[in-house]
């Protein structure tokens, strides 16, 4: 009974926060409060057991990686990379798309999506401002950036929340995830990039003259004329990353969990760059997201404690006899729920169910869990509002007052993205499903 109530509270909370996203923090707090009250009073759970089931280590990793991303951003490497990309493009819009989406893919695999976007988009917007652009080009370019961001995030265990959740909770080993997810995500990115080329040629090709594009590039060079890389910070960051990478890979053999690795890496780096670190902790760490996820985890913990998730998994296994169909339904369900409720809520809710399904059916956990993470990636790419990357890009374009060659204000909204989002969703979801079913 309490389990049914808790699941209703969860669904209602997720739906209301998706509709009234301006008040999502209040809504999620109310949802968590109601869930805890119900669990303690009706469900006879204790606060201790509810807290015990919250994956605090995932939140610790998120904070640690957030600090690391912000510190690396201060090294200036990524601004230099972006400007270099614009120079190498020699004013070709097609090359700009290819290079920026590729940088975004690899950057999102290491840094969090928010930081990756905040680093690259201002430079990209400046480039388009200087070289000229059109509404159609903006739609293609930023859609590709968003899907590259989502795929890059899904390609490594530290790139985005779903993968961090899998690694942080010990559901999958760091290397295992990397070896399975990275090649698929890279392949998916390349396929999408290849499909974008003929679309660009047919629909959005920009015809900018040699003189105009040369002036655009010269102006850009002057605007970013003295960019410098803070080498000591960059090297310290790279060394830290290498140490963390090694410990994530081999640490489990000596009993070091991924969250401890994060502390071990970020701690000395913060000590070394304490002034920057103080500023980052005070102003750059996304505590809003951390609090949002903490509330969400509390709600999931309440549900798990009531036994409802177990019940759902057993029922699914009983009603859907074919293992292929069961996994298919789970993945599609994850993809669609992500597109509506966004990646965090969807992954946090679906993971315990997936784990139960894996347990009931004796499926290969690594393959199914990567499949679930890819489904989250597919769902994140369906609507502009489904992941952090979409609304942030939209917001940055609006604030930048980027204009097209016709003098119109650049627009990148839900409808401009939708046609691309649909294609991305279908491609990623299909590949994910085929990959998992093939390996069952």
């Amino acid at each position, binding site marked *: 009974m309490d389990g049914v109530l808790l699941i209703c509270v969860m669904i209602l909370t997720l739906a209301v926060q998706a509709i009234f996203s301006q008040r999502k923090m209040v809504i999620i707090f109310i949802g968590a409060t109601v869930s805890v009250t119900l669990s303690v009073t009706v469900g006879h759970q204790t606060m201790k057991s509810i807290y015990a089931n919250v994956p605090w280590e995932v939140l610790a990793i998120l904070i640690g990686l957030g600090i690391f991303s912000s510190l690396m951003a201060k090294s*200036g490497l990524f*601004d230099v990379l972006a400007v270099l990309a614009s120079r190498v493009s020699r004013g070709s819009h097609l090359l700009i798309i290819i290079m920026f989406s590729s940088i975004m893919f690899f950057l999102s695999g290491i840094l969090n999506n928010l930081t990756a976007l905040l680093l690259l988009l*201002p430079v990209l917007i*400046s480039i388009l*401002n*200087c*070289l*000229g652009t059109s509404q159609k080009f903006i739609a293609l370019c930023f859609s590709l950036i968003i899907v590259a961001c989502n795929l890059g995030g899904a390609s490594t265990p530290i790139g985005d929340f779903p993968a961090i959740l899998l690694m942080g909770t010990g559901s999958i080993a760091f290397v295992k995830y990397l070896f399975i997810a990275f090649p698929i995500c890279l392949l998916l990115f390349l396929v999408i990039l290849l499909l974008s080329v003929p679309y660009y040629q047919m629909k959005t090709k920009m015809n*900018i*003259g*040699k*003189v*105009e594009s*040369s*002036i*655009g590039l*010269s*102006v850009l060079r*002057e*605007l*970013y*004329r*003295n*960019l410098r890389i803070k080498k000591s910070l960059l090297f310290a960051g790279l060394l830290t990353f290498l140490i963390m990478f090694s410990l994530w890979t081999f640490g489990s053999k000596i009993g070091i969990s991924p969250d401890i690795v994060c502390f071990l890496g970020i701690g000395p780096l913060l000590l070394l760059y304490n002034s920057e670190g103080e500023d980052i902790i005070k102003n750059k760490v996304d505590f809003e997201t951390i609090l949002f996820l903490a509330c969400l985890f509390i709600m999931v913990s309440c549900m798990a404690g009531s036994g409802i998730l177990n019940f759902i998994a057993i029922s699914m296994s009983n009603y859907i006899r074919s293992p292929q169909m069961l996994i298919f339904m789970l993945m599609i369900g994850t993809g669609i729920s992500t597109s509506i409720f966004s990646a965090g809520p969807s992954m946090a809710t679906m993971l315990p169910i997936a784990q139960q399904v894996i347990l009931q059916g004796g499926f290969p956990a690594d393959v199914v869990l990567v499949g679930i993470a890819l489904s989250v990636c597919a769902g994140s790419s369906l609507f502009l509002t489904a992941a952090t990357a979409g609304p942030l890009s939209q917001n940055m374009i609006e604030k930048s007052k980027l*204009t097209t*060659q016709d*003098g119109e204000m650049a627009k990148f909204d839900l409808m401009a993205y939708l046609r691309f989002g649909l294609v991305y969703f279908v491609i990623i979801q299909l590949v994910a499903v085929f990959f998992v079913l093939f390996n069952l």
Partner: protein
Amino acid sequence: MGAEHSNLSLTELNTKTILKTTSVAEPELGHFSTSLVVYQTVYELLGSHFSSEVARILGNDLPLYDEINRTQLSPNEILSTIKENLGMMFDELQKYERIIFVGIESIIIDNFVAALPEATFYLISHSDMVNKERLLANFSTNVSLASVRDITILGGPNSILFSYIFCQTQEQTALVYPITIRAIGVDVRQLYSQVIGLNILPPYKRYLHKMSEISSTDQFFTKQYQVI
């Protein structure tokens, strides 16, 4: 120079695109520096003859480009002239701790910052459209942005103030950034040991977009230096 590109068609030159590009640069580079970048690019791409052709096409919309072209100097000659002329001031400027620029002309400020690393620089932008982070990323930590309101606080015997004068005629009328008029009043002049006008491209008289005309430069500046 640029002979291999001389077959490029100038009749199809898209003025709108070029003006859009320059409008992005002007808040952070300055009007003169932006025009100089355009001139340098066209000159290197098409050569001096075509540069004059471009000046004919762009002249009305980008008058400073036209004025730069009329100097008949190559971009390198212009850059070395600027460096040489500014260099004559630097010895005298060593004694100042604070150097304040009203308006931004990157080509000038870059020379100052390189020559006077001990000084602290404050830039008061001539535009609201400036991307502060990008602008400051080009300088070391001794350069920061200030607002017009700070100009009195920054004054003192160790402070010197610079701004720009464009197209000054023999009758002393000239064009300046509107921010110069707002920032440099009688009270401000008394607070600074010197208020220097950096004279750019005299003596041509023509209307420059987004600039304000002043009837006498003497009422704003205690001293003037010719930049180019």
